[in-house]
């Protein structure tokens, strides 16, 4: 048993360290990540997942339904398979057709309901939905691996493991929509259901079911084509299939638009880190789990491939740094006082930022009992930040900015470099885009993501305001600063609400913002395809629905 926990003596890492773009862009999954919290809940509550229907033809066209019985309620994933011409296949949001489309439903739809879904779900954004639908998604095949696996299974043999590891999934989702999009249920409607209270829980459940669908599909197609010769995937190899995802700029504004929520996520992880660093002596079980996670990580990282030069260099440094961590984490260190603090401090002093954040993942991993409860504290009622306290004086507001918004004063916004970009929503696809402010038209339609610039502007105006003027009166005459005042008020209560970086600077790599959110989802194998979009893998190594009950380890997350 682990002895003693004096979390109070180790503080949380400060926001001006944690919230830097470079560090957000080096985030890794932890046991608090949303998909891991979902799997723990599924296992603890013995959710029953069943394949209710699988009417799919040899071309992959048809309908499949999976049901999820959580005890109190039933959910279902309705999947439609399509025959997609290769030239129509694109991961980008500009796509209009996909290999498969999905809806997660409240309950199980009847035939009329399925017909209605069949008329809408394949159209995705162009369809209309009801509040009985909770999530909408679509996926495309990873053509090369899908075909390779299919032909192997047809011929009665297992696919090549190296090929499976190189890609890691049979299909990748290209969008997963929740919270009221296109008429589906508002999050308000489901947030009080205990099984769906965690952030993105319904979305994670959808993706988990889609993963099961992808392996069922390839096995089904193999049986149709190969007949009695065909075989199914051997279970250990089957678990190496995660589900892919391609994500672009559409996701980036989320982190900026939900400051208080982001603070809850980061606070949970940072609290977990502080707690485990405060552990006085490690138990044998914790030491063994830490070592196992570290050992498995070496192989896991060998399979993390990308063509992106920056990420490729970071992975190389991470591999090298984990070897150094191996050398440092001797029996003496792990058996000594505050072993996980020692490991974290070693990482902080000697390893790359990517490896420092991986060390955070590793030291948290063995401490489920200590930290798993934090995963239940990652949601927040955002309406709490709605009302501005107008009784504050302008002098108070200035002090709050100075105390909590240091990020606003780091860039020199007089330079064009610092304002080089602007965020906008494209008329063509109604999706967020990043433009060049001084080269492209449209900056008068800028989205409010230039938080640092806007708070700096507020600070300049406040400098000329009488200190005793109330914020209510100030905002009545300066409504253009209202959004910034609200953010300052949130930052004062939520230390990790703001990114310590310039989101409109020439140096911005938007994938750093995406990476942070995806790590909280539980993503692995970040594969940037440009500075604006990337591919990832979810649930790789995770138990399938039929394995949940018998899987008694969390080390699947490290490829065990």
């Amino acid at each position: 048993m682990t002895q003693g926990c004096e979390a109070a003596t180790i503080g949380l890492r400060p926001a001006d360290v944690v919230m830097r773009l470079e560090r957000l862009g080096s985030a890794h999954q932890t046991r608090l990540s949303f998909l891991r919290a979902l799997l723990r809940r599924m296992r603890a509550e013995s959710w029953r997942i069943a394949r209710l229907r699988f009417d799919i033809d040899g071309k992959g066209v048809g309908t499949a339904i999976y049901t999820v019985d959580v005890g109190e309620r039933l959910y279902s994933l309705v999947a439609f398979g399509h025959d997609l011409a290769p030239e129509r296949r694109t991961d980008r949001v500009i796509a209009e057709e996909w290999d498969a489309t999905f809806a997660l439903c409240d309950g199980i739809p009847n035939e009329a309901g399925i017909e209605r879904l069949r008329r809408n779900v394949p159209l995705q954004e162009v369809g209309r939905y009801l509040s009985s639908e909770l999530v909408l998604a679509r996926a495309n095949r990873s053509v090369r691996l899908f075909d390779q696996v299919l032909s192997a299974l047809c011929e009665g043999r297992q696919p090549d493991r190296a090929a499976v590891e190189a890609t890691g999934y049979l299909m990748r989702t290209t969008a997963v929509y929740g919270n009221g999009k296109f008429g589906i249920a508002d999050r308000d409607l489901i947030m009080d259901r205990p099984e769906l209270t965690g952030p993105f829980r319904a979305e994670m459940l959808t993706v988990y079911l889609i993963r099961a669908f992808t392996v069922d599909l390839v096995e089904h197609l193999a049986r149709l084509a190969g007949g009695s010769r065909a075989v199914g995937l051997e279970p250990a190899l089957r678990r190496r299939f995660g589900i892919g995802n391609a994500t672009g700029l559409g996701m980036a504004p989320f982190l900026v638009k939900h400051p208080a929520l982001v603070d809850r996520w980061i606070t949970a992880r940072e609290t977990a880190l502080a707690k485990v660093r405060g552990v006085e002596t490690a138990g044998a079980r914790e030491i063994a789990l830490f070592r196992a996670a570290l050992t498995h990580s070496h192989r896991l990282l060998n399979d993390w491939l990308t063509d992106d030069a920056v990420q490729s260099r970071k992975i190389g440094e991470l591999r090298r740094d984990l070897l150094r961590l191996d050398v440092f984490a001797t029996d003496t260190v792990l058996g000594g006082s505050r072993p996980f603090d020692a490991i974290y401090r070693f990482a902080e002093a000697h390893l790359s930022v990517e490896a420092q954040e991986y060390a955070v993942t590793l030291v948290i991993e063995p401490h489920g009992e200590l930290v798993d409860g934090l995963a239940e504290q990652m949601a927040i009622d955002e309406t709490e930040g709605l009302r501005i306290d107008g009784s504050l004086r302008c002098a108070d507001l200035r002090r709050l900015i100075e105390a909590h918004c240091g990020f606003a004063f780091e860039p020199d916004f007089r330079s064009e470099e610092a304002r080089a970009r602007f965020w906008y929503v494209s008329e063509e696809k109604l999706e967020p885009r990043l433009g060049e402010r001084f080269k492209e038209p449209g900056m008068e339609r800028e989205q409010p993501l230039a938080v640092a610039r806007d708070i700096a502007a507020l600070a300049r105006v406040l400098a000329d305001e009488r200190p005793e003027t109330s914020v209510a009166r100030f905002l009545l005459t300066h409504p253009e600063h209202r959004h910034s005042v609200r953010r300052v008020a949130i930052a004062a209560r939520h230390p990790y609400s703001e990114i310590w970086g310039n989101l409109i600077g020439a140096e911005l790599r938007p994938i750093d913002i995406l990476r942070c959110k995806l790590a909280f989802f539980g993503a692995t194998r970040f594969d940037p395809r440009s500075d604006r979009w990337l591919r990832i893998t979810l649930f790789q190594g995770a138990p399938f629905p039929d394995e949940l009950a018998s899987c008694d380890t969390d080390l699947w997350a490290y490829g065990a």
Partner: protein
Amino acid sequence: MIVSLNEIEMTVLKAARGAGLPWGLSEEAAQAARWLARLGLPFEAPLASLLASQAWRADLVLNGTHLRSRSDEAWLCPIRAGAWLSDLGDIVPVRIDRVLWPILLLPFAARRTRPVELAFAGTRLLTGGATFAIRQGDLAALRQPMAERVEVMAPDSCDLEQAPLRRPEGGVEIDMTGWSKLQGFEALTYVPASLESRLTGAGAAQSDND
């Protein structure tokens, strides 16, 4: 058409911004619409008309807690006035003169920690939290496009029964005329594609048949 509360919030946010409201007030308009929609109250036509009026540009005069426009011709924007009403906290009484669509003040008055009474043109409303009650007048009075004077005061009694937060289970049926106008304003926030933005706006395209 039936829409979700999130669609209402997003459409109104963008519509308000597209019409020219600053972002902070656009957020307030979006939250106000969500509050009204949840109670089945009209927001589409009032907001569409308000956004066309550009009333938030009027010069204001603030005298203690009495807000009015500088010019006798101008009418006040209930989003701008409502945001101020919300910022004031629990201060009463408050008087707002010549304001458009007084129903749009309701969600802001409701944010106070204690219920308040709103009185205008023979109508008296009690509001607080997620609900409201008509003390005098009728629902039709809520659709008045303007009020010469709105007074916000402490109620004689606070017998406002807090109805449980209504969740429109099946979504919200909207008035398409007003909604279409809001969508027109919404479109003004979008940036048309240029050759350069197609190439780089979301990252260079590569083949996905891999």
